[in-house]
């Protein structure tokens, strides 16, 4: 009787072990699939193969692992293209617009979550409806508005576009503020705190995760977006490209030079390193934001 029980426990254990092994195998396969393209870009950025004429082979090739590696692509990227300029442009745009949009988003979220006033519900409904229009439906009109006031093709136009709409993206932060108990604010009010003091001294200190989440997304946005940037900057002004626009045109612009793939890859790596590092170091807050947004 006891033996049977032990046997059963043993078989249970071994079946547990097989299932774990299978899980590890599946996970490993998935990791390979997911890293394959990322590694491909990295390897290409380092690939420095020359043809018999001594020219750098920059096209997409059929072998995955490069035969020779070096930093030639990075040298060309920084010395012979406008990439450094694009990088600074993007840094400029994202630094300013992330500050403005974080402030706008958080203030709207706070007001929507904690203050009571007449048009609150209608504002919420209007915000939902506006969010349903495809974003670039208004893009053409924005382009002409900016053009009419001679603002297109400047980085300031991009900053305006990225930060102006931030007031609509308050949902996730609002969901976070909703969880902060109202009793905290009520007792502060009894102590004579104004609404602005409650916001600055009670809500904000409690909201580090959501502030970081909002700021992170706003900062990364300009590095990733190329739809708006492409329309507003236009193709002619290579000086005011952002990295996304610049790298896209490098590969698929008017004059397609297929020999630049490795240089393109080098550019991608330079963009990816700071963004990915920033993202991974803030991962905790990102997860918190995503979960808050999805459950609500």
């Amino acid at each position, binding site marked *: 009787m006891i033996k049977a029980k032990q046997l059963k426990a043993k078989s249970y254990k071994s079946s547990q072990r097989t299932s774990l092994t299978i899980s590890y195998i599946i996970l490993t396969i998935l990791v390979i699939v997911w890293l394959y393209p*990322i590694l491909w870009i990295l390897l290409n950025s380092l690939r420095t193969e020359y043809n018999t004429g001594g020219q750098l082979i920059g096209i997409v090739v059929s072998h995955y692992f490069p035969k020779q590696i070096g930093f030639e692509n990075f040298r060309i990227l920084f010395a012979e293209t406008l990439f450094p300029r694009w990088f600074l442009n993007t840094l400029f745009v994202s630094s300013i617009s992330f500050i403005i949009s974080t402030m706008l988003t958080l203030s709207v979220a706070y007001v929507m979550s904690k203050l*009571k006033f007449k048009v609150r519900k209608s504002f*919420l409904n209007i915000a939902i409806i506006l969010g349903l229009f495809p974003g670039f439906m*208004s893009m053409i009109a924005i382009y002409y508005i900016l053009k*009419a006031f001679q603002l297109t093709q400047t980085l300031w136009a991009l900053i305006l576009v990225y930060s102006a*709409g931030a007031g609509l993206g308050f949902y996730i932060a609002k969901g976070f503020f909703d969880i902060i108990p109202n009793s905290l604010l009520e007792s502060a009010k009894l102590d004579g705190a104004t609404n602005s003091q409650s*916001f600055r001294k009670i809500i904000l200190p409690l909201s580090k995760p959501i502030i970081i989440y909002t700021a992170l997304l706003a900062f990364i946005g300009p590095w990733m977006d190329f*739809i708006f940037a492409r329309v507003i900057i236009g193709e002619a002004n290579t000086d005011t490209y952002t990295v996304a626009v610049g790298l896209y045109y490098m590969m698929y612009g008017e004059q397609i030079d297929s020999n630049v793939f490795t240089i393109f890859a080098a550019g991608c790596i330079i*963009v990816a390193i700071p963004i990915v590092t920033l993202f991974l170091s803030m991962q905790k807050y990102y997860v918190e934001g995503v979960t808050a947004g999805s*459950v609500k």
Partner: protein
Amino acid sequence: MNNNQDTYKKRNILSRFFSIFIYFGKSIYNKFKKFINRFKDGSIGTKLSHIFMGAGNIYHKQYIKGVIFFIIEAGFLALMILSPQVNSTPLGFKSIANFFTLGTEPGSIFLPTDNSMLMLLFGVICFGIIGMFIAVYGSSIKSSYKADLDVKAGKEATSFKEDIQALLDDRFHVAMLTPAIIGIITFTVLPTIFMIFIAFTNFDSLHPAGQVLFDWVGFDNFFAIFNGTGEISVRFGPVLGWTLVWAFFATSTNYIGGIFLALLINKKGIKLKKIWRTIFVLTIALPQFISLLAMRSILAEYGPINSMLINLHLIDDPIKFLATADSAWTARITIIFINIWIGVPYTMLMTSGILMNVPKDLYEAAQIDGATNRQAFRYITVPFILFVTAPFLITSFIGNITSFNVIYLLTGGGPTVPGYIAGETDLLVTWLYKLTIDQSEYNIGSVIAIMTFIITATATLLSYRRSKSYKEEDAFQ
């Protein structure tokens, strides 16, 4: 029972729909009544405020406020009457007339053509300015009337300093929302309204702005979807069909894949959970234009995947996966697979968070009742995830309908359909982008945008009104 509930819900939506109109009508009527009453009951200052904004505030010695209101009125009137030319198109009272005519000067050697597009745009902007002015006008009268009441009650009218302090407290929402609302109106509302109007004109590549006049055409562009031989009538059905198929598969594959991956990583006994998770999060952090263009090169005709398949003798000739694919479905299936790569980590991350939040006592109770692990999974974990992520499913379905990057960066809409702009893999949004940005077919593009909006709005209305977050919106208050 169920049936009853359904009809009840339907009636509810309809009655909500009509109640919006009744609500608007009532609120306008009430505003008007208040307006009349304020004029009747107000002091001389308030009465004067109806003509000279700020007069009432000056009457009550609120000088700074009064002057600010007066400057706003003067500025508004100056703009309206002087109608300054911006890009040789007037902005001001003339732009209202232009809004209806959309330009009358067809252009000659001596006179430049009226720019119909700018006239329409400025008309919309002008209405926007008038709307904002009316709001300020109302608040100027209100503020003067409030000062009246304060004086009547034996108090002093509020000083400028007190008004500023109120902005930080009782009227904090005004201070916080004003910048956001100005931004939203200028960069979202007005442009969207402008684009909606474009759908009712013949602004296309044959009527370039500033060279040929265009005009209002009513609903013609919408009728063109259903009859005619143009791009929109031939390609609308197929593109809409593919958009829905795409949104369905993109959403469901990501959802199932993400939950699967989350369960795998969170499985009891798997070590280094954090590292596994981080590897997948890496793909969220990578800008999409990088990962998608990388995919495009990997799948190129002479790229590494094809050469690997040839070396393994699985195929003889390279497969064309994307824009140049021989069959539309090759490209479509490839895109859906690549989208799994893009989207699964995101769902995984979200579900991981949810998995950790499954109430532990549920499992304990199940264990006491003698449930096996499998049963606990089947009857606790799965229903819990489904219940909590239901709203996410709908938002991600809508997100996929308007997902631009994946299609545009992978295939650019290709394989092409000869004679038409919309390719085999074009979604409504990429089609709209190409039509407007590349082809200058603004009116058709606008019609497509409106149709996209109708689809996403219907999906949202059906789900959002019932969702937990909306119903419990007030529960937190």
